[in-house]
Each structure stands twice: as structure tokens, then as C-alpha cells.
């Protein structure tokens, strides 16, 4: 119990005193995860929507594969990205290992299948409803994908949130490719892992509380946007 009480007061203390290290870690966590989600949305939403509206041999297999990739283990992705970016790897010359960019790449790889698979489902359902009306108007190709993505926009906010949740909570991949270097690649989750292993349970828990708080705030902000703008949805 003592640890928990100490953790809450430490968390409050860190936030209220404006602890510079804390804000640096939070800032890096947010910028890495948000950039990764933005990249994942750009790739995953268009891919998911394209798969939803096209029919080709092997489509069923691709959908199954996409759904399965939602469960990619972060450490495996971290290891794969590590091998590619390490000095001996094919992209070793870029010198990206142990940088925030490497962490963004790893998280984007983790989040893209989540965004693509969920978008595929959302757009597929909408397409079923719109199909004849849009065919009648002669809407096809890129125009069809754009129409469906725009009209699914409120559901897609939830998809992006699911992706952000996976990215910001993830530790396995960023710790391998980022290395948890102080002031450079230390994020909320890697810091929590480190403090826990050092036995600083109160500090680890305090960081955990801040992380959960941030997650709640981001979700709340985006749900607010979706809620206000999305009253017209599904009515």
C-alpha cells in the first residue's frame, strides 16, 4: 500500500513541479507514437479501403493475414527492425539504430496492420450500404475509396485511437531499436521498465499513472471531436 500511496504523491509531485526529465520523456513518447500512427494511418487506411472495395483472387487470404498481423509481437518487430537497421544490416548505413526514427519505424510497422484491418472492416460495411447508389452515379476507383474513407471518418477516429493505444503502450520494440538512452530515446514505457528493474517501484508506478492519464486525455480529446462532429453518424 505504501508504494501505491507514494506513487500517487510522486506522480502529482512530478507533474506539478514540472519535472524536466518527465516532460522530456512524455514529449518523446507522444511524438514517436503520434508520428508512427500518422504514418500507419496514411498507409493502413488507404490499403484497408482499397482491399474493401476490390475483388481479386486471394483477397480472402489477404484479409485473414491482415487480421492475424494485428497480433504481431512487438519484440519480434523490434528484432526485425534492429537487424535491418544495425550496422551490418541492409539499411545500416543510414545510422538510424538507437534514434527516435528507428522507434517510429518499428511502431509504424506494428500499428499499420491494426489500422488497415479495422479500416477494411469499417469501409466494407459502408460499401455494402452505398454500393448500388455509388455505382449508379458512376463512382469508382480512387473516387470510391475517397468517398468511403470520408464518410467513415467518425469510425476511423476510433481506428486511429486503437492504433495509438497499441503504439503508446508498447515497450518491446522501442526498447530494442531505441535502446532506452537517457535524453535521447527514453520513452514512458521504457522508463517504467527501467525503474521497475532498478527497484524504484514508486517512480515506475508514478510514470505509469502519468502514461494512463495521457492515454485518457488523448482518447478524450479525439472522442470529443468525433462526438461533436459525428452526431449525424448512423442516424
Amino acid at each position, binding site marked *: 500500500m505504501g508504494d501505491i500511496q507514494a506513487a500517487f504523491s510522486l506522480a502529482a509531485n512530478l507533474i506539478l513541479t514540472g519535472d524536466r526529465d518527465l516532460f522530456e520523456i512524455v514529449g518523446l513518447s507522444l511524438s514517436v507514437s503520434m508520428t508512427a500512427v500518422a504514418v500507419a494511418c496514411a498507409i493502413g487506411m488507404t490499403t484497408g479501403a482499397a482491399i474493401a472495395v476490390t475483388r481479386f483472387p486471394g483477397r480472402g487470404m489477404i484479409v485473414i493475414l491482415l487480421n492475424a498481423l494485428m497480433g504481431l509481437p512487438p519484440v519480434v518487430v523490434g528484432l526485425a527492425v534492429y537487424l535491418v537497421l544495425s550496422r551490418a544490416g541492409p539499411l545500416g548505413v543510414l545510422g538510424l539504430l538507437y534514434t527516435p526514427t528507428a522507434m517510429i519505424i518499428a511502431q509504424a510497422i506494428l500499428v499499420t496492420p491494426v489500422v488497415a484491418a479495422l479500416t477494411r472492416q469499417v469501409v466494407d460495411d459502408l460499401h455494402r*450500404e*452505398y454500393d*448500388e*447508389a455509388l*455505382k*449508379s*452515379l*458512376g*463512382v469508382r476507383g480512387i*473516387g470510391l475509396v475517397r*468517398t468511403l474513407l470520408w*464518410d467513415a*471518418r*467518425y469510425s476511423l477516429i476510433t481506428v486511429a485511437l486503437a492504433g495509438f493505444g497499441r503504439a503508446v503502450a508498447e515497450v518491446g520494440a522501442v526498447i530494442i531499436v531505441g535502446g532506452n538512452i537517457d535524453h535521447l530515446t527514453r520513452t514512458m514505457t521504457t522508463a517504467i521498465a527501467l525503474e521497475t528493474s532498478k527497484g524504484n517501484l514508486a517512480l515506475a508506478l508514478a510514470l505509469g499513472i502519468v502514461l494512463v492519464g495521457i492515454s485518457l486525455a488523448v482518447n478524450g480529446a479525439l472522442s470529443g471531436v468525433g462526438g461533436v462532429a459525428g*452526431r*449525424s*453518424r*448512423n*442516424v
Partner: protein
Amino acid sequence: MSDSVLPLSALNLRYEVNGAPLIDDISMTVAPGSFTVVLGPNGAGKSLLLRLLHGLITPTSGRIDWAGSGGLRGRTLRQRQAMVFQRPVLLRRSVEANVRYALKWQGAKPAELQEACEFALQRAGLADRRRVPARLLSFGEQQRLVVARALAGKPDILFLDEPTASLDPSSVQRIEALLVDANKAGTAMVLVTHDIGQARRLGQNIVFVHRGRLVENEAAEPFFSSPQSGAARAYLGGEIVV
């Protein structure tokens, strides 16, 4: 109507699902500016016929010719037609954005877009609701918007699949008025309905379909006064036709 893609002629249309013919050897013509009503019992193939004519599905055999199209195909030919479905399909956007969207795909030029949109909204009596999300409209208003949206690009022909089924009488009246106005302005109509009163009010020609076959294709007046086939007589007499 010299620049109309009509007349539309269907020749020996056949549509099979798993070898069973749902539409069997239907030939018919739709003249520019005409008002054709398709009647027939449930399951006769009326909606399928409409979808075949509009090109939403491809016939198993037979052909559809747009004699006035001058070789227009694909999207350009499609821009001259429109269809209204039984259940209104509205985009998750405002009333005005729905009309604008349709106009863009119907090939309206940017300069004409605003005026055409305004005209469509006024005609549908929805001008004061332009900013409302389309899906918040009442069912009757939604269907009125769909009809106005379909007519916005002044198509040569409009296909309607029971557009007023399950609407209240005043909504039916307003939609029929929209159709009559547009028809007078030159848009040919092909309307599937179950409402015999509506068929009498609107139809110039009646196509009666039974078991996937075209049984009668007649001007409205002789059809209603002296139907030739037993099926049409029974249908008009209010009997259950199987």
C-alpha cells in the same frame, strides 16, 4: 430532345441465377420524355429489370442499346441516367453536400454547380435545411432529397424503384409532383411501383411483368380499361397473383 441518349431499347434480356431465369426474354423501348410504369406482383422481377436497364447488373444474354447516345459509353453514358432506390441512400454529409456530390459525378461544371444545387434544393423544398446532416432528415424528406439529388443533373432518364413505398400521403404527393415536373421538362421516367393508384396517376405507358416475363406493354388508358392478360386482370382486380 435531340441530344438525349434515348430511346433506350432492351432486346431479349435474360438474367439467370444458378441457371434459373429471373428475367426471361424481355424486350422493351423507352422513348425520350416518356413516363413508363412497371407493374407486377412481388417477385416478378421488376426491380431486377430496372437494374438491368440502368446497367447495375449485366444480363446473362440480350442487349441494351442507347440509340441516341452517339456511341457514349461507361461513365459519360451513366451521367445521363440516374436511379432512386426504395430505401434512401444518403451520404454522411449535409443536405447540400449530398446534392453537390451527385452533381460533381454527374459531370456538372464548377460554374453551374452552385446554381444547379440551389435549384434542386428549392425544388425539393429543402433549401432551409441545407446545412442539416442528411441523415437527420425525416424519412419523407430523405426520399425527397434523394429524388432531388437524382434530378439535379437533369438526366435524360430516371429509374425509380418503389420510391414512395412506406411514405405518408403528403410525402408521396410532393415526390410525385417532383417527378411530374421533371418529366415535363424532358426527363423520361421508368417507375416500379405497387401502388396501382400511383400508376394510374403518373403512367403514360404500362409494362406488366409476371414471373420474369413481360406480359403486357401498353399505353396506360387501354391497359387499365381492358387488360389483355389474365395475370394483369387478376392483379388489377386485387387478387393474389402467383
